[in-house]
């Protein structure tokens, strides 16, 4: 029961409290770039969850069964980014061949994800936080869900923003960032939630 509780806490805290986009600033580029339309935001979010889970599935065993026993911990960054880049390519090829429908909806987002710092960030953080294999997977799922949530919420805000009248020099990115700042402020309200979840 305690393990289960622990997993729930990890999941909830990575979705709401430590939301990667809004409080840790990872994956800001796709957050700002692909959040114009709700459909695109959802597609990107789902692809990120997918890639994060697969990346964790592969990088965690690599760290614990290859890099650590051979004292190659310092190779972490190079190995992880290569694995993620290769994995994304591989997933794209497999999807194209066997699941063309899924590829059509997710395919365009996959190359973008290689350089998404949230993916590299979550794999490295899972190792530094000392999570075990199942905890790592749950935390990746949580981070991915948090990313999707932030994207979808923000796509809604932006569709309103498009119609509003803003000063010339604030047009485009500046006003978007300021809107993001308020969305992020709203997420601060979750800070106490997880600690008191099982109290």
């Amino acid at each position, binding site marked *: 029961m305690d393990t289960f509780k622990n997993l729930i806490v990890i999941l909830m805290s990575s979705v709401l409290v430590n939301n990667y986009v*809004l*409080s*840790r*600033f*990872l*994956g*800001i*580029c*796709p957050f*700002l*770039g*692909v959040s*114009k*339309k709700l459909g*695109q935001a959802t*597609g*990107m979010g789902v692809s990120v969850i997918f890639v994060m889970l697969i990346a964790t599935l592969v990088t965690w065993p690599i760290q614990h069964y290859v890099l650590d026993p051979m004292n190659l911990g*310092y*190779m*972490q*960054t*190079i190995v992880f*980014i*290569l694995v993620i*880049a*290769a994995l994304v390519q591989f997933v794209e090829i497999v999807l194209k061949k066997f699941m063309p429908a899924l590829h059509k909806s997710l395919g*365009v*987002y996959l*190359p*973008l994800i*290689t*350089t*998404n*710092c949230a993916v*590299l*960030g979550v794999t*490295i*953080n899972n190792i*530094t936080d000392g999570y075990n294999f199942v905890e790592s997977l749950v935390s990746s799922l949580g981070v991915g869900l948090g990313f999707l949530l932030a994207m979808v919420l923000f796509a809604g805000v932006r569709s309103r923003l498009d119609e509003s009248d803003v*000063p010339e*020099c*604030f047009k*485009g*990115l*500046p*006003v*978007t*960032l*300021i809107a*993001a*700042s*308020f969305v*992020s*402020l709203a997420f*601060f309200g979750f800070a106490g939630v997880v600690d008191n979840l099982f109290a």
Partner: protein
Amino acid sequence: MNKNSNMSVLLRGLLLENPVFVLILGTCPTLATTTTVIGALSMGLAAMAVLICSNAVISLLRKVIPDGVRIPCYIVIIAGFVTMVQMFVQAFLPEIYELLGVYLALITVNCIILGRAEMFASKNTVGRSVLDGIGMGLGFTLALVAMATVREVLGSGSFAGIALPFFSTHTISFFIKAPGGMLVYGVMIAIVNKLTHGKAPRKKSFACAGCPSAAMCSAGACETSAVKEDN
């Protein structure tokens, strides 16, 4: 000034093509490491070191690397230099290593470095690429320090760890938290927009033309939406 002179390659990174405020590259470290001036300065210098080295090597190898696999090649070169910087900082500046944490490793996927490799180093000579690296690195560092100054003075009432009179008794902790970072960044971009009005290349669709993945996803999601908007 001649647009292609070496001097202009060096200088344009500072304001007119400032990577942070005009090209909108590397937003993640910009927001995350600017809570303290020291953190911002060390992040800027670390990224600059990687940028200069990777620009030089990528420019040297630009005729050897096949076009189809260039992005993975760039990533490996960059990740190699990042690991070197990481080990150096860990060995000689352990406090900075603690302060920057995961963001040091994440220089690997910093769009500035991959973006300059793709946009500049892969098409120019070694000398010019190094100059570009220095200019862009300085621009990045300056932008980070400028943002960190605003956030640290208002948020924790100090500058580079030294407490300031008045500010230290009137701190607004909002500025060192996540939303404050985005707010300051947005306002800073607006100020730079105003200052360089008409001179800086105006970006119609941000975070895409400057994004290193733009080359890979020419048929991709944000590209098509940007094209639609232009029409």
